[in-house]
């Protein structure tokens, strides 16, 4: 075969495979959006061609007439959305407040047990959640923390804190200690060096890691499932409500899914440059 023909064929085959893979990867998301625009009857009768309607969005945002009549399981979507927002941002704020200094200490100081400490934080990321939340479901009931925002935010540290500590540690390690040394010689105290020099240098990475931690907290399911009830119920737990009743309302569920996940996809696009380091906990610099 002529080398140029061979090259062209390879290129066509490669692009073809990629297109098939991305159809597989993106179709469920497209389907979710399509179904969210279908009316109840068209859900069963049509596939791709139908008259789009916003009634599902209207129903989940402003109340479902059929839910009031008791036909559909009642899901208070706006409330659940707000809950997700509160617990996810609360978890990220606390993780930032305690994680940034810890990441700095792990990056800059040499002390006994440093690697063990760092690995213990990392092991939270890999630990099966139930090993912590089964006993917590008992402890929280005794302490009165069951189904409270504080309780959920506290346990979300398992998700957000290891990520922030490890990603930020890798950013701090990238900064040459010479910069700090120079500032120290100029007589700045360590906390000013930290606030005025180091923090601005890691700010883009910090913001991206915080956003990623937010997405992971938002997407979490098992913590609010076990440790929360009606008060703190998040969108991930309540999504099950749309299809758990005798009649499944897939179109309502799809609309809720769109509102709960499209913002994150946009977010992901905006922090793309920092995603790989975040997703790999600082192991791959990307």
């Amino acid at each position, binding site marked *: 075969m002529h080398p140029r023909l061979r090259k062209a064929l390879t290129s066509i085959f490669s*692009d073809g495979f*990629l297109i098939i893979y991305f159809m597989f990867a993106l179709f469920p998301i497209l389907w979710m959006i399509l179904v969210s625009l279908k009316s109840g009857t068209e859900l069963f009768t049509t596939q791709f061609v139908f008259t789009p309607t916003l009634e599902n969005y209207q129903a989940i945002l402003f109340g479902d007439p059929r839910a009031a009549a008791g036909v559909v399981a009642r899901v208070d979507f706006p409330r659940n959305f707000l809950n997700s927002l509160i617990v996810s941002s609360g978890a990220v704020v606390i993780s930032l407040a305690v994680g940034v200094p810890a990441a700095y200490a792990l990056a800059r100081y040499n002390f006994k047990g440093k690697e063990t400490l760092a690995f213990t934080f990392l092991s939270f990321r890999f630990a099966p959640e139930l090993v912590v939340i089964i006993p917590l479901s008992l402890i929280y009931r005794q302490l009165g923390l069951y189904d409270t925002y504080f309780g959920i935010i506290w346990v979300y540290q398992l998700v957000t804190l290891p990520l922030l*500590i490890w990603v930020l540690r890798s950013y701090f390690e990238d900064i040459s200690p010479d910069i700090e040394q120079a500032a120290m010689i100029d007589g700045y105290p360590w906390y000013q060096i930290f606030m005025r020099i180091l923090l601005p240098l890691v700010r883009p990475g910090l913001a991206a890691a915080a956003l990623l931690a937010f997405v992971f907290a938002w997407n979490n399911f098992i913590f609010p499932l076990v440790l929360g009830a009606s008060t703190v119920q998040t969108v991930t737990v309540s999504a099950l409500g749309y299809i758990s009743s005798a009649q499944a309302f897939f179109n309502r569920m799809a609309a809720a899914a769109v509102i*709960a996940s499209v913002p994150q996809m946009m977010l992901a696009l905006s922090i793309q440059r920092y995603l790989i380091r975040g997703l790999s906990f600082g192991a*791959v610099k990307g």
Partner: protein
Amino acid sequence: MATKQVSATDFAVPEQETVKPPLLVRWRPFLIALPALVILIGILYPFVVGVAYSLTAYAFTRPNTDFVGLRQYQRMVEDSNFVYSTFITLAYAVSATGVQLVLGLIVATLLNRDSRIAKVLQATLIFPMMVAPVISTLIWKMMMQPSVGILNPMLNAVGLPSLQWAAVPETALFSVVLVDVWMYTPFAALILLAGLRSFPQGPFEAARVDGASFWFTFRNLTLPMLTPFILIVVIFRFMDSLKMFDIIFAMTEGGPGSTLMTYQLTAYRTSIQFQKLAQGLPYAIVLYFVIYFVSQYLVKWWGRAQRRAAGYS
């Protein structure tokens, strides 16, 4: 003579000070990390409590904290479902991680070309990973549904028979692994793509000039240099799929029957749903230790692979 003596001691720091800097300086890293350590303890405490309760017969309905030794562990091992549960936990993790690694490597290799289509598509690679796992599993469940589902009509359109997906034991594991593969192949592809792009071009150009085949270059250059990145994918994906809960729970809650009752699902059902707190704990604790030691081993291996890839040894 006096001046000579002064200059000799001038640079010699008194010994006590080099050994022991002021207390506050020595403790500074711990002080800085203190708030994080508090949270660490707050998370380790329930873990320790959990291990303690696994040595009792505690149930929410019968709060009895008498020490019963390893009876709950014995009960777990003797349970008729234990061997199968071990098998399904491993089968899920191995197949999901394996497929993601291979498919991710293919996608990464194909994206790492000078192609306009590749550049456009790459931006959307992250999408499946950003949707909450439980929500995208519900979307997949809807697509697999017999009445409103789209997957069976699609299969029929290309001449394949309909499947019953997660509703029957034969295809249940396949269905959940399919969702896992859909969700996390982008992770594998992104990490491996970052690896491919970090390679120096020299060795590859030399291989091209020498007329080395694609497979020769792949086996002898790409794969060894990619090892640290492959290990990162394995560490994250294998550990995560050993403890996968969201996908299986949203799809079938461990069913049909007990087809998908992995360790995590069994621990949840026993301790939370059936309220037998102590009885379900061994599954979570054993899984914790397995994951802890395997991940520690893989992280060490990763460190070695990274040094080797960088040419230090």
